[in-house]
């Protein structure tokens, strides 16, 4: 038996922390520009909450992009459907929603979120089987099919619920702010940030500590080789697609509560942000998606405060800047 010579020791793998430092640097740079520390803290808290909600909605989409190279322009449908399903739970329990008890509020909020995730996930199953399965590997058809699916979903919501905006008030115990000196941080933003962090940690644990997660990471990198090892990646993709759809549904509920309203085209304003996050994060990268979401939210909040006229294009400018620095996104996972 032969021993292959071990060549030079491996260089220690470099931890690429530059993308992590980016939001920190952005936050620090804006302190003197904003001037008031309390305003800066309020904007930063708002950015974190908004970033976490966008991350929840975008995380599934980035895995779908990375794993199967599928362009799903209909992702926003799961967001809107999730929000509408939550109104079905909120409406009959309006008194409980407005009760002045956190536990009573959560007794309505938690089932509403879970039901929204279940319905959005199930809708994801239907969309993958009916719209996406016939057009694997055909990007133009994927765009047409999923955009068409989004239009059908929006019009169905209009038909079922009507064109009016449906109010979705925050539960009573989540109204108001935590006051720290002269800084007021909305309670709901704290909750949204905590939920976003929990989702991020859960996804990281699954991706890094389970065989299923290894398969997803390997599939993002080289799905053909995963199949050659004997794994049916289509089933894996279906599972990821449904999970991504369910998370979009959860994000829809959270966004509806943030805006305190629901309407069928509510995802229109989010879709651009979600795609910007997926692209600047690097297709298939959860870590990149997380940092990208925070950056997008920071640019929207800080930019909106400092240069309101630039707010509409600030995220596009951010995307251009990031892609000039790293053409495949903050963390390139795939070769695409």
């Amino acid at each position, binding site marked *: 038996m*032969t021993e292959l*010579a071990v060549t030079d020791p491996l260089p220690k793998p470099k931890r690429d922390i530059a993308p992590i430092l980016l939001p920190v640097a952005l936050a620090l740079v804006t302190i003197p520009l904003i001037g008031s520390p309390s305003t800066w803290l309020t904007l930063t808290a708002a950015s974190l909450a908004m970033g976490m909600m966008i991350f929840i909605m975008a995380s599934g989409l980035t895995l779908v992009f990375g794993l199967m190279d599928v362009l799903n322009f209909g992702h926003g449908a799961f967001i809107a459907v999730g929000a509408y399903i939550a109104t079905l739970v909120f409406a009959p329990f309006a008194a409980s929603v407005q009760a002045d008890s956190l536990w009573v509020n959560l007794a309505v909020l938690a089932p509403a979120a879970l039901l929204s995730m279940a319905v959005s996930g199930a809708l994801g199953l239907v969309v993958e089987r009916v719209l996406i399965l016939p057009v694997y590997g055909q990007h133009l058809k994927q765009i047409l099919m999923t955009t068409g699916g989004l239009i059908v979903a929006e019009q169905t919501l209009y038909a079922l619920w009507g064109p009016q905006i449906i109010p979705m008030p925050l539960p009573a115990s989540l109204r108001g702010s935590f006051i720290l000196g002269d800084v007021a941080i909305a309670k709901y933003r704290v909750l949204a940030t905590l939920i976003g962090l929990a989702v991020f940690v859960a996804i990281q644990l699954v991706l890094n500590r389970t065989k299923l997660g290894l398969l997803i990471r*390997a599939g993002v990198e080289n799905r053909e*080789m995963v199949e050659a090892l004997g794994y049916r990646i289509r089933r894996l993709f279906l599972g990821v697609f449904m999970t991504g759809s369910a998370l979009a549904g959860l994000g829809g509920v959270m966004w509806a509560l943030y805006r305190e309203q629901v309407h069928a085209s509510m995802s229109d304003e989010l879709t651009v942000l979600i795609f910007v996050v997926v692209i600047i994060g690097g297709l298939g990268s959860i870590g990149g998606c997380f940092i990208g979401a925070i950056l997008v939210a920071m640019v929207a909040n800080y930019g909106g405060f400092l240069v309101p006229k630039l707010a509409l294009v600030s995220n596009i400018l951010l995307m251009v800047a990031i892609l000039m620095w790293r053409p495949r996104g903050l963390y390139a996972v795939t070769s695409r």
Partner: protein
Amino acid sequence: MTDLLKLSGVHTHIGRYHILQGIDLAVPQGEVTMLLGRNGAGKTTTLRTIMGLWQASSGEISLAGERIESRATPDIARLGVGYVPESMAVFSDLTVKENLVLAARDGPMDDTQLEWIFGFFPALRRFWLSRAGSLSGGQKQMLSIARAIVEPRKLLLIDEPTKGLAPAIVMALIECLKEIKRQGATILLVEQNFFAARELGDNVLVMDNGTIVHRGEMAALASDVPLQERLLGLSLEAHQ
């Protein structure tokens, strides 16, 4: 010796290109069959077609008597076919350990098998928790082969394992493949390195323009310089 793998009249089209044009071949059980030929002859396409990565447009492929030409790649892998692609295709974002954990599809890795692999490839033990992307080309090749043998396989399809490797690593790799052969493995091995082919092969198939143009014993081809020059365009001496 019975044939483990048989291809009869296999054609493969990739887009509008007709790559395999009626391949007939057999791989005997427990032997190493070399698949030689010039660049673009169709060797890699043959392996990918057997693996189901490209669908045969016509013809029959059978593994241990079971037809597999219409089966999906994961099903073919589950029948006991290990595949080492030319690109090695290690998962560079995963560690060496994680690459092998995935390859051990049917459960936890067998410690005895792992020690056997470490015997061939001690670098894999040393870099067990390192990212595969940070390995050298030779170490990636070791990992790619280790992934194919971490569980018992009926058949190994190996595509140009010595390509781009330093001579010392090539020699060591040949010894490793010999040891795998001594364990009774059945291997269909694509190779451009004629020296490696002569060292490892029991049988040889030579391809040109998508067809098999020669079949026979490796030893016979290795000792027939005019035949080597006619089939491969160069002799073993020239290659060395």
